[in-house]
């Protein structure tokens, strides 16, 4: 078999076909300056994106930093089976899943409704002013968003709790309770990104053919019928594709935000895969185990994105790759 393949390949090998070799080499040589411009970028991707992918092999070792990748002991899937056996695994899975569901049934519809309402405004100045204001929080850092949340909500001196006390109520431990964790996360997400999320819908809505509306008006349709029969169908495909993309990315949901909101009191409902990797890996020093958890997350994420893309194509959309 090997022999056969080698024979087949031989005629195409560069040294026996100087013309092909020369033209490819000549083309490469001609573009040597372009390759020089490309080099730093490629080196960047190789070192900071592909070296870590190779380094993820430490998930199958008992990696010791002083021994390095080459001399650390190989343990196969030991860390993975440990992780799947931990009660932590189901906790992380459940926490991630619940936040993803909240995201899909609360955050996502709100962006659509907001876009539809904005689209009904005919006064351009008013519309643009509202847009300008609701886009602002998107550009603030998560530290600032969470910082403001803390300023308003801490139990002792938070503004809201001082108001509650001034009105004769009992202070509520918003930031240090299991019950309030998820509502706060979703509220922050809405505050930061619901306005920003309308952009893509508004762009789609701006592209709807005005003649459709005129024709429907001739037939006696009222505004709500126009909304239902023309506006909504025209953004249906965008809704489907964004929904699928969000499904595909749900493991990455809000890590920076959740990391800031976590504390000992709400960890049980708040810990997700990435915060667990950070705590177990870099704080407790279980490098290989946490790399295994991270790898599990990356692989599931890749499968979800690929699946989501296939699904999008089934719906007749373009997909993302």
């Amino acid at each position: 078999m090997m022999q056969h393949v080698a024979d087949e390949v031989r005629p195409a090998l560069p040294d026996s076909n100087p013309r092909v070799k020369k033209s490819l080499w000549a083309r490469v040589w001609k573009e040597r300056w372009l390759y020089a411009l490309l080099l730093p970028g490629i080196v960047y991707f190789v070192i900071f994106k592909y070296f870590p992918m190779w380094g993820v092999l430490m998930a199958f070792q008992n990696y010791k930093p002083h021994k390095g990748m080459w001399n650390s002991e190989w343990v196969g899937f030991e860390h993975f089976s440990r992780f799947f056996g931990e009660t932590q695994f189901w906790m992380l899975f459940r926490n991630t899943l619940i936040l993803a569901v909240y995201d899909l049934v609360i955050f996502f519809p709100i962006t659509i409704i907001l876009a539809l309402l904005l689209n009904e405004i005919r006064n351009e100045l008013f519309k643009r002013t509202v847009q300008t204001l609701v886009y602002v929080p998107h550009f603030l850092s998560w530290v600032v968003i969470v910082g403001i949340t803390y300023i308003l909500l801490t139990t002792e001196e938070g503004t809201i709790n001082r108001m509650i006390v001034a009105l004769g109520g009992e202070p509520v431990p918003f930031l240090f309770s299991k019950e309030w964790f998820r509502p706060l996360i979703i509220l922050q997400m809405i505050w930061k990104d619901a306005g920003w999320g309308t952009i893509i819908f508004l762009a789609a809505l701006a592209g709807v053919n005005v003649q459709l509306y005129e024709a429907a008006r001739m037939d006696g349709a009222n505004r709500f019928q126009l909304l239902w029969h023309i506006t909504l169908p025209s953004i249906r495909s965008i809704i489907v594709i964004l929904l699928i993309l969000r499904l595909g990315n749900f493991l990455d949901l809000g890590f920076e935000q959740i990391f800031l909101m976590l504390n000992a009191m709400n960890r049980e409902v708040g810990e997700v895969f990435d915060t667990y990797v950070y705590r177990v890996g870099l704080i407790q020093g279980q490098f290989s185990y946490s790399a295994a958890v991270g790898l599990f997350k990356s692989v599931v994420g890749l499968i979800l994105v690929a699946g989501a893309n296939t699904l999008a194509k089934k719906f007749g959309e373009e997909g993302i790759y």
Partner: protein
Amino acid sequence: MVQDKTIMSRLFDAANHSFLFLIAVLTVLPFLYVIVSSFGSMDDWIPKKFTLSAYQYIFSTNTFLRSLQVSVYITIVGTAFSLLFTSLTAYALSHKHLPGRKGFMLLVLFTMFFSGGMIPTYFVVRSVGLLNTLWSLMIPGMISAYYLIILKSFFQQLPEELKESAKIDGCHELGILWRIILPLSLPAMAAFGLFYAVGLWNQYFSAILYINDSTKWPVQVLLRQIVVLSSGGFGDSTQISQDSVAFYGQSIKMAVVVVATVPILLVYPFLQKHFAKGVLLGSIKE
């Protein structure tokens, strides 16, 4: 859009206007409250008299000034590096006849869907010697694959004849990029520069991961220490020294929030102008 004068329709318009007005106000209200209260005295939750004492205090501490310097430095230098290398790479990849172009594109694209994860990346950053240096905040995220691809398509849309004629005149590739492509792409470069700068200014997690030395913390990390950790948030106790858990008055926390946000608000009108043109959506036509 459509003129509709029925009572129901007018009622809806009135309700819709008031609702959106309310939403817009609610969106900026928490932030406005923080700005206004930062000029109040320590213990007022409704500011009673105007004072700059919170700002005087934070600007008198070395910790705060140093972290502000760090943030400004990494934002300026980091943006310059990011823009330079993103545009060099995008320009090279915009040549459709470049041998191996497809392979390089695949190399870039794949990183958008899969990564080695936090721990292996940490060890790479450590082994190239960036740990505990400000470079660790600028280099590991230097090129965004997403911006790179958008910029590449932007370069491809520029008329081919421009490059051809420059080549005939004996212009070097770098010369073409510098004298012809970049001047034509200034709005796009400004937009990507702003997005990179906002990202660099706002980042905090890479500093928590890669920098132990608190004199090298950017302002976002300091803000987290002052506002979140001092109120009992995530206690990764290995990184907090005793004095950072000290008590801070509300108005000091607010003043730090304001200073950490002012640069974003300053560039916001420009951000608004650029994303309105659709740069972020990848539909660059200009």
